[in-house]
C-alpha cells in the first residue's frame, strides 16, 4: 500500500472525529471526538516518517502521544470541575460566557 492509502485513511478518521466534535452534546463525547482526530494525526506522522526513508520522524509521534495523554487528563479534570460547579456536562448548558 502506498503513502496515499494511509493518508486517506487518516483523513477519513479525522473527518469522523470532526463530525463527533461538532455534533456531540455531551462534553465527554466531544473529548472522544478530539481523541479520534489526534489519533488520525499520529497515523499521518508515522506514515510520512516511514515512507520518507528517515525513520527519525517517528519521534514526533512519541511526543504527540504523550501530549495527547496530558490533554486528555486535563480535559477530563476540567469536565469533572464543570460538573461539580454547574451540575451538568452538556455543552449546550455551559453558556456562561454567552452575551
Amino acid at each position, binding site marked *: *500500500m*502506498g*503513502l*496515499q*492509502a494511509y*493518508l*486517506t*485513511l487518516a*483523513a*477519513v*478518521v*479525522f*473527518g*469522523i*472525529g*470532526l*463530525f*463527533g466534535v*461538532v*455534533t*456531540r*452534546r*455531551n462534553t*465527554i*463525547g466531544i473529548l*472522544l*471526538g478530539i*481523541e*479520534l482526530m489526534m*489519533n488520525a494525526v*499520529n*497515523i499521518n506522522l*508515522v506514515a510520512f516518517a*516511514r*515512507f*520518507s*526513508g528517515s*525513520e*527519525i520522524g*517517528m*519521534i514526533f*509521534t*512519541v*511526543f504527540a*502521544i*504523550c*501530549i495527547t*495523554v*496530558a490533554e*486528555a*487528563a*486535563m480535559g*477530563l*479534570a476540567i*469536565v*469533572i*470541575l464543570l*460538573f*461539580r460547579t454547574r*451540575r451538568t456536562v452538556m455543552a449546550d448548558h455551559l453558556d456562561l460566557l454567552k452575551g
Partner: protein
Amino acid sequence: MAETIAFWSLAVVLVGSALAVVLSRNLFHSVLWLALALTGTAGVFLLLEAEFLAAVQLLLYAGGVVTIVVFAIVVTERLVGERITQTNRRITAGAVVALAFVAFVVDFISQQPLAATRPPLTSDLTRTLGESVLTRFVLPFELLGVLMLAAMLGAVYFARPED
C-alpha cells in the same frame, strides 16, 4: 498481497469503530468503541513496522486514556442517576462540514506526487528512537517531562476535594 488484505481489514475496523464512537447513543459504549479504534491504530503502526509505537499506543491510549475517560463518566453521570445516554444535534450540518473537509483533503492528497513504495528499514527502529530521544531530542524530551508533571499537578488541583 498480505499487506493489502491487512490494510483493508484494519481500515474497515478503524472506520467502523470510529463511526460507532461518534454515533453510539450510550456514552459508555462510545468509550469501548474508542478502545477498539485505538487498538486498530496500533495495528496500522504495526503495518508500518513501528512496533515500539504500537506498544506505546496500546499502553498509553488503549490502557490509560480509556481508563480515565471511564472514570470521568462514572464520576459525572452515575452520581446524578441519569442514564448514560447522549444525543447528537445538527447532524446534517455536522455531516456536511466533515464530508466537505474529507473531500477537500482526499482531493488534495490525490493530486500530490506521493511515494507508492517504502524504502527498506536501515536500522532497528526502536534503537534509533531510543538513541535520538536521549541525544538529538533531549531538550524536547525534558520539556515533555515538565509538561507531564504540570498536567498531573493541574489535574490533581482541579479534582481536589471541595473545602
